[in-house]
């Protein structure tokens, strides 16, 4: 399982970076989104997958999965939500002011 997830992380990063390297603001945004997912899966995979019960003591299990990466990911999800929202509005606002969603500027600016 870990091997498959590791490959999936690789693909998420590849596509994410590919999108980030494009000119359209929307693509860049979606790219960061995919990379975020990749990072979350990476954090989770690092501690090993399905090594025990969910990290709830009520389960009264022998072993639990590692709670620490989960706490980190939870923080990360919420922060990246804030960042994504900020980026979305930045893109939206840029487009409304400049009339383009090209990060390299409008055609006139480039010349």
């Amino acid at each position, binding site marked *: *399982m*870990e*091997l*498959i*997830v*590791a490959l999936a*992380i*690789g*693909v*998420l*990063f590849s*596509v994410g970076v590919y999108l*980030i*390297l494009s000119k359209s*603001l*929307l*693509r860049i*945004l*979606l790219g960061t*989104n*995919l990379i975020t*997912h990749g990072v*979350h899966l*990476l954090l*989770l*995979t690092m501690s*090993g*997958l*399905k*090594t025990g019960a*969910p*990290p*709830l*003591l*009520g389960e009264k299990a022998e072993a639990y*999965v590692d*709670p*620490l990466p*989960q*706490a980190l*990911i*939870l*923080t990360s999800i*919420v*922060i990246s*939500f804030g*960042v994504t*929202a*900020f980026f979305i*509005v930045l*893109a*939206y*606002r840029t*487009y*409304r*002011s*400049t*009339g383009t*969603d090209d*990060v390299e500027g409008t055609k006139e600016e480039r010349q």
Partner: protein
Amino acid sequence: MLHVIILVPFLMALVIALLTKRASNLHRGWFVFPGSLALFVYFLTRIPVIKGGELGYETVSWIPSLGIDLVFHLDGLSLLFALLITGMGSLVIIYSIFYLDRRKEALTPFYIYLMLFMGAMLGVVLSDNLMVLYGFWELTSVSSFLLIAFWHRRQKSRYGALKSMLITVFGGLAMFAGFLMLYVMTGTFSIREIWSEVGDISGHALFIPAMLLILLGAFTKSAQFPFHIWLPDAMEAPTPVSAYLHSATMVKAGLYLVARFSPVFAGQYEWFWIVSGVGLITLIYGSIQAMKQTDLKALLAYSTISQLGLIMGLLGMGSAAAFYIGEEAVFYTAATTAAIFHLINHAIFKGSLFMMVGIVDHETGTRDLRKLGGLISIMPVTFTVAMIGSFSMAGLPPFSGFLSKEMFFTAVLNIRNLDIFSIPSLFTLFPVLAWMASVFTFAYSMILVFHTFFGKYQPEKLDKKPHEAPFGLLLAPCLLAVLSIFIGFFPNILSNTLIIPAMNAIHPILQTTEPFVVNIHFWHGFTPEVWMTLGVVILGITVYRIYGRLSLVDKEWGSGYTLNQVYDGVIRLVEKLSRWVTGSYMTGSMRHYLMYIFSFLIVTICGVVWYSDGITLGTTEYTPFSLFEVIAVMVLLLGALAIPFVRSRITAILLTGMVGYMVTLLFVLFRAPDLALTQMIVEVVSVTLFLLCFRHLPRLEKEKLKPSAHFLKLIISIGMGVTMTLVALAALGSSPFESISKYYVENSYTLGGGKNMVNVLLVDFRGFDTMFEITVLGLASLAIYSMIKLQLDGDGTAAQLKRVVPYNKPRYSRSDDVLLQAVAKVAFVIILIFSLFLFFAGHNNPGGGFIGALMASAGLVLLAITFGMDMVEKVLPINYRKLIAIGISIAFLTGVGSFIFDVPFLSQTFGYFQLPLMGKTELTTAMFFDLGVYLAVIGVTMNIIFTIGRDN
């Protein structure tokens, strides 16, 4: 005590900086003068202590692991310089008080820089630790830079400041490298410890390179040929600065360094030849150049270069003593005695001359020799000062300069007796060069006085009507002139107090021989020195006469600027080169920069994985997988891979959402219920946001890229993917240390009182993280609010938003679907209750503040979609921005509350209580904290959604 002493000037700088405008009725100089004078007096009281041979080290630990400590030490040499620095400093401050107008000049920075310099210079001469010395050394360069550029609106000032900075810092860096080499050889940064190891290291391969590098530092600082070119340009500084830094103190730091390192390097042939050779060349070169100047300050600058060369040469000749022992050694130390004596004399007469030139400049408005003349009747006192200073410089009796000039001649004549080199004829060059330079020195000293104060008075060429300077301006130069005469008559007052202790520091050998005495006399009988002086006077007058007859003064001199051209050329070349290098990769394209970052990441991470021992990729035991899980991953990958190809914005956004939901599913499968809940709701909210904002954006165009650029993009993307896969596998395969997670598993119930470990981690163990996190979220949402609502005009004022793209009024501000409206109300209530359940259950079961808040927000979004935002705001008139503030405040106050119980910030506690209706209930302070999180997150989410939504 020495630490305090060095701190005093810096403290005075601070005082000046803190003075209010109201204090400006008093000249800023008066605030620093008492401190400076007190330092001078302190060092005077040290004279008997040092004479008694008492030497102390004062250490304050700084970076002991690197052998760098603030070790200060006062010996004869340091004391001599400290007296120069504080004494000249005090006089220059008095002078500057009358020279710089408090109403016209920026005095606060001036005195701050001046005090910085004084402190740094004291640090240089008192440090025993080479690294500390180096730090202070560069600080003198920096303060000199600031002072030269004091009138920074003038292009020439900036040019001169930069030039002096580049050259002296270049030398400083060379010196730094030399210091490091000494450290490599000896293992210590302490000068005294290096002295004691000279015998062991003199054969080391780095010994001569270290010596050359340190000399480079000394020569650049002391303006020795060919590095002297910065000093004439430094004359753009206000005259008090020139008098202080560029003649009396800073330029002598190089001499100090050479003297300080004499015990280490003296005895090396290279040292003798380079120091004395460079010194003599600078002496003769400077004196000839001084003849050609028409600007009084430029004349003094070249004269300073020449005199510094003289002292440098004497130090070099003095090092010959190290070739001998006993009587013969003492014989050659006469040169060093002359060097120290002349160093004092030079500071005195050159200081007075600079101040005199400053007065002439101040009163007539010019320093040009071609415009000046006949001032003797107008400025008699200034003339007297000029005459005493110049005659002392020329080496005429009864002024102190005469005595040191005689000693200089003795030293160069002594050198002829050196029998250790195979080419004795070379040594005849020493007296010849010295004598010629003295002739020129005599001549330019005469030019200085007679062209300024005699000859024709040309009032029509002057900008101002000249008159005698005020008393305050004359005070300092007059004191120096008196001192010059006084030392001329009673030179031996210096010999026991200052010269011998300094000599002991430079020539440790003198401490071992019988009591060393210095006796300076006017008259030794008809010795060769007397005839040489006589020759200088006669020939000097002749040169001056010829010079006057040719009226060379009126000619512009084109030569002598070749070194400057080299400097300018190098600067231009470096500028061009750096512009080219920077321009080649700083393209202004964000994507290029990202490519650099990604490439760097790929190379470093892969390099580490490849080269590090103990990193294994993957484990031997993988968790088994089911078909279901594989399908979830496959769907995720398909969704992700499809995104770059689609043209429709909506499809792209939905595909990303699909990836998000698959990740949620994986969270469920991987036993992370909290994550799954959070991710799911975040996906809902962010897809809503995406759709709200991107309705109006243009279609996604296919990128037009060159095939090579496209290929590069692909390579970097795939490289990043491979790298991250490697990271994941490497993390699985190798764990160099034990995880800290066990602690949380074991203690979350006993210490945090919760059964949901993730929640306990968030609100208790790592509560600080969470508090900052909601703060960041709050900031982001406020930034979004201001980005939408405000726009700054060119002049920085808020203005109405300009819209380039005309905005269509959205057609569907609310849904007309009756069914949806009916369901939504019920759904909202259910969602809200569920949200509260998640919040309260969170400590023991999946849920918590974050998830609950996001759930509630999702409910509100549903209402807004169904009934329109106006309606929602009417029903629930909440200011979400205030809600953010309240939430963060509650979380923060919960943390602060810990202080009442005398426990660290954000300590949580819990207990069990019997409550009506609910039975035995656990109550924790973490609940308050989570409430803060809950409110803040609702505020953030709704603020964002409503801000954007209502912008329509």
